[in-house]
């Protein structure tokens, strides 16, 4: 249980940190921020990699989880990069 309390602590602090960091984002960057954040949510890839594999079903699930998370990661970062490259100052 103590582990969960510690991890819960990390969770709350990170959310608070996130809110503080992004509170004043200019509207120009709303789309790239969203798509960049979306790519970060592909961190589920790390979770998918460490899944336990006690059965065939779990093996299959893990493979699909890895594949889809990886689409999210690669697609997300590339599309964000493409978008940001278009933003130019006068």
């Amino acid at each position: 249980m103590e582990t969960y309390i510690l991890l819960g602590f990390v969770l709350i602090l990170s959310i608070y940190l996130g809110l503080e960091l992004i509170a004043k984002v200019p509207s120009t960057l709303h789309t790239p921020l969203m798509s960049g954040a979306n790519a970060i949510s592909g961190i589920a890839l790390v979770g998918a990699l460490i899944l336990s594999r006690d059965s065939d079903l779990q093996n299959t699930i893990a493979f699909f989880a890895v594949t889809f998370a990886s689409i999210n990661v690669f697609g997300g970062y590339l599309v964000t990069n493409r978008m940001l490259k278009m933003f130019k100052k006068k």
Partner: protein
Amino acid sequence: MTFLSEITAIQNIIYIFSSILFITGIKMLGKEDTAVKGNFFSALAMFVAVSITLIDVVNPIVLLSGIALGAVIGSFIALKVKMTSIPEMVALFNGFGGLATFLIAWSEFNSVPENLFQHILVMTTLYIGGVTFTGSLVAYAKLSEKIKIAKTSIITKIFTTIFYISLPFLLYSIFVTPFMVTSFDFFTVLLILTLLGGIGFVLPIGGGDMPVVISLLNSFSGIAAAFAGLLLLNNVLIVAGSLVGASGLILTVIMAKAMNRSISNILFVGYASSSASSSSSEEQGEVSPISVSDAYLILESASSVLIIPGYGMAVAQAQHVVRELGELLEDNGTEVKYGIHPVAGRMPGHMNVLLAEANVPYDVLAEPDDVNPTMDAVDVAVVIGANDVVNPSATEEPGSPIYGMPIIEVHNAKTVFVLKRSMSSGFAGVQNPLFFKQNTRMLFGDAKESIGGLVSEFKD
């Protein structure tokens, strides 16, 4: 210390490093000058976290091939997609992230949860991930106009009902099933209800409310990842997931504020029920149409022009001709600015991306608060395919459904050109008194053709 626990220790240290990179990355992503670098840092963080995890996985070949497959598909989509299709692309990727957490929770359920807390986490992660997955797919289909189902249709009602059933069933799965032996396979039922419920969550939400929904789904996918982190006792998942959850939440709030509506009103009520009352206050009158050549003469003598794009510009694919017109005006000595409303378009910042694609520099893109105070000094405000975001009812008519919504107050400009296909009302279904104002001229027709006409007048 055994060899295995040493590896775990090293991994955890690297995860801390990766978390710091994620935090730095997302911070830099919030500023124009550093955004590209920020995205790179966060990609680097991901690379580090994934690499260090891969060193002690059970069957690396299967997993690496999964990553490779995902990399090929993801990169292909990301590099092929047109900039106008960004909203649906983001929705689709978001859905895949949700699916991954959904699968993680599913797999963890099969490894038999040890305690009640784990059980709660599995169910919650599964639910949020699943709703994110199918909800994002529906958002994708709606945005790319692959499905068109009315809010009032029976299909929408069925799915919405399933969504409302899925919520109590989730609570049942969390709090009842661990203590009682159920006579049926509750988990399979939950899987199905979750996936169908996600469809019902997004299906009734209209196009103009999409910016809010996408932001919210974005936030969900982060929260789901953070919960999966709690489940797997993994720090980097928690930190990265929370950052995404927070950023999605901020965008959701910004979008809701820009519409002056509560999030629950957007998700569960919509405009349809409130707009009926407004038809009585419909202000009719004469509209004054204008021809392209007359519009040209006025624009040519204007010294400051404000362009207000809306979803109509995206539909007409007019952003390139708009940029061309802007440049010609500037060559003519006119000051050109763009007034961008936060909810114009189908996702947060949609207009900014389109204009950036057309090479409009971002420093001439202004927010409503920046342009409204000096609106009376603007000679011509050109409204291109925007409607609700310039509707003066929002400031003048307390009975209007959109009353209180912050708008771009173009009606205070000396002259307003409204480029529109027809007299139909905007997404909110509210009549726009702007069209009947003394200083408004309607330029009917396809936005791309009208602007193209202006451009060629300038060139002659």
